[in-house]
């Protein structure tokens, strides 16, 4: 089947090229960079969760870094307690989903600012708990001594195997997201986002869907957190602050909320720019902020819509070049 639209075309080529580049990358760059690109994969997972939730429901969550942290601490603590990595990883996803449901149950009845405020409150209090529940989290000095990830006899202790493990999870997450958006559940989410009243009058339970997408969003942050915990094998509260939530939000918006690849592109743009601008130190924030403003003005549907936007511009230019009248 030949892809028809410019977007479909760009998607097929983009994904193929991306897979090749990602597969070869660890052998082309120095180990420090491999760690950065692993981090990109981890951010992609958390940002994809946010993309699904915000794109599906039009709500804003400011708690993504809280779920990221809960996943990280849960996974770290459970592995220190002796659980094998796959179980700790799975538990991180489940525990964060349970937290999300407990906030979502009361808050998702209301819409808009209420949820944003509730998630902000949850975010701020979670950071404080990470800092102060020293017996559990190690307090401000952080949680160290987290064992390296391994699945059965296969160890992911060094950067390169861990890089592949992370990107395998990213692929699985995107595959899941693809199925979620193309199946009936995806159609239901789109219907609710389009017109909630009409969707409800056709038998769709909008509240339950909002709740579920919030749980999925948090759960993805949770497993991303688990991967993060075993990357450096030490975690500290300052990685899970409100600022981190804003960064996840920025990634989702930069990438685009209309596509499941928005989170991936947002995370890549963000980490690549961040790395390139490292030498600017404080200036980095200003430059990233400027890029964000420019992108929101010229690419309101996110970086993911770049092929379509270019195609539209080309089409318009061609039309204008044609002589008027016949």
């Amino acid at each position, binding site marked *: 089947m030949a892809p028809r639209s410019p977007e479909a075309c760009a998607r097929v080529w983009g994904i193929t090229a991306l897979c090749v580049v990602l597969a070869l990358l660890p052998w082309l760059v120095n180990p420090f960079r491999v760690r950065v690109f692993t981090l990109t994969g981890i951010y992609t997972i958390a940002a994809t969760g946010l993309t699904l939730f915000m794109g599906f429901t039009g709500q804003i969550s400011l708690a993504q870094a809280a779920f990221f942290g809960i996943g990280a601490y849960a996974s770290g603590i459970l592995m220190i307690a002796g659980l094998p990595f796959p179980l700790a990883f799975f538990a991180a996803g489940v525990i964060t989903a349970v937290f999300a449901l407990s906030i979502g149950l009361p808050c998702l009845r209301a819409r808009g600012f209420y949820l944003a405020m509730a998630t902000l409150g949850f975010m701020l209090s979670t950071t404080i708990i990470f800092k102060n529940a020293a017996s559990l989290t190690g307090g401000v000095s952080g949680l160290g001594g987290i064992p390296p990830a391994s699945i059965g006899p296969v160890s992911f202790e060094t950067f390169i195997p861990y890089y592949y493990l992370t990107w395998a999870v990213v692929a699985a997450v995107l595959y899941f997201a693809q*199925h*979620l958006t*193309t*199946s*009936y*559940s995806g*159609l*239901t989410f*789109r*219907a609710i986002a*389009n*017109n909630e*009243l*009409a*969707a*409800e*009058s*056709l*038998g*769709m*339970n*909008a509240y339950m869907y909002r709740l579920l997408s919030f749980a999925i969003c948090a759960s993805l942050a949770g497993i991303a957190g688990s991967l993060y915990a075993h990357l450096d094998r030490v975690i500290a509260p300052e990685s899970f602050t409100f600022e981190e939530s804003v960064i996840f939000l920025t990634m989702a918006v930069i990438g685009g909320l209309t596509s499941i690849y928005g989170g991936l592109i947002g995370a890549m743009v963000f980490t690549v720019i961040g790395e390139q601008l490292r030498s600017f130190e404080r200036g980095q924030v200003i430059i990233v902020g400027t890029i964000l403003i420019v992108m929101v003005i010229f690419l309101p549907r996110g970086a993911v819509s770049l092929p379509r936007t270019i195609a539209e511009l080309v089409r318009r230019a061609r039309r204008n070049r044609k002589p008027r009248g016949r």
Partner: protein
Amino acid sequence: MGILEIHNTCKAFGGVQALQDVSMSIAEGRITALIGPNGAGKTTLFNVITGVDTPDVGTIFLAGHDVTRLRPYECARLGILRTFQRSMPFGDMTVLENVISGGISVSRLGSWGGMRRTARHKEVLGQDRVKAEALLKRVGLFERREMPAHSIAYGEQRQLEVARALACNPRILLLDEPVAGMSPEESLEMARLITTIAAEGLTIFLIEHNLDVVMNLCDAIYVMNYGQIIATGGPSEVGANPKVIEAYLGKRGTGRATG
């Protein structure tokens, strides 16, 4: 007993009594109309029936089931479907996707279906699609199936909404001003559609201001004013009722009610 029974229902918004002790019985397989001046409480009654609003007092039964306090999606799953006064298609979706999404809650796949691509799932997906396409052919929108719903004409959007509601297997279909804002040709088209779906046994309950449509189409008419049912009966009976003439034309009105 009718398929939809409304008993002594009241609903107030602040100090405004939108519904006052409304009782009615909608006969199965018939077309029933609800008419009345603007602000009479017609749409409020639709909202109360479909679970958008909960009545303060009273009970509503669908085929013997108490549906008074159910949420809109629960009412829809039991077979109470509706269209809205302002058309509400899912604008970003294609026309076909709109109709398919209408059938999701009654699909044999369930709303999470299609996540797994087994042969049986594919088969049901195909069946759902065929059903949606057949509905589009019925309302005359099959050629428009791949267009985004926001780009089709207003009259077509209203037809699309009917097709989408039909996809959800209604037992009763509530139409809120189905021909409002339509051209005479579009109105005729819609009236024909309503007649054919009613002829197949579906119960229709509609609000309409176009009295030509009401008088020609409907088997029974309820007239509302100030939140109360002021008259009921067949078209000729209601048309001759002095209370109805008064509500529509004022106290000294003596002309025909079909004005």
